[in-house]
């Protein structure tokens, strides 16, 4: 399923909404999650999962082609952990 299929499905289920509003709704949800993480916040969606930011320390990396050492700066990366309910559902427990 891709973003547009999600929007189409949601629009079909909500005939009282304009498709372009459904599009804005779906986009607003994903945008809010990215914005939260960009501010260093966590987004916890019980049953589904949690989005958080992990810090990667600065390190000395190596250019794999030349073998040359390069300094890699500290950085922050997005992380997602599936919630218990979803993990259980993936493995056939509960409906």
């Amino acid at each position, binding site marked *: 399923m891709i973003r547009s299929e999600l929007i189409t499905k949601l629009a079909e289920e*909500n005939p009282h909404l304009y498709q372009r509003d459904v599009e804005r709704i779906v986009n607003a949800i994903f945008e809010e999650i990215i914005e939260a993480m960009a501010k260093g916040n966590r987004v916890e969606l019980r049953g589904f999962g949690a989005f958080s930011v992990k810090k990667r320390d600065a390190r000395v990396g190596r250019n794999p082609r030349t073998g040359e050492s390069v300094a890699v700066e500290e950085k*922050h990366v*997005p992380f997602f952990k599936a919630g218990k309910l979803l993990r259980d559902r993936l*493995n056939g427990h509960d409906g």
Partner: protein
Amino acid sequence: MAGKTLTRMDLSEAVFREVGLSRNESAQLVERVLELMSDNLVEGGQVKISSFGTFSVRNKTARVGRNPKTGEEVPILPRRVLTFRPSHLMKDRVAAGNRR
């Protein structure tokens, strides 16, 4: 880092601000989006949200694990796990936003 935790309520609030729906309907739509994504994953599908990321299900084979406390061997059954691969856009925005 701020270290605040957002929940469904904050997402509903974002939807509420974006379109002129009631708070209640906004909350229901957020819930439905999560359900549609979950159902698709449970059915074994991939959920690909452009400029956000891709959720996919991977099959793990059985292996022998060990209880780290007691050293006891325990079988780990085959199972399905969910992985999320953030888009480049998300990675860039998260990296830029958290840079000191």
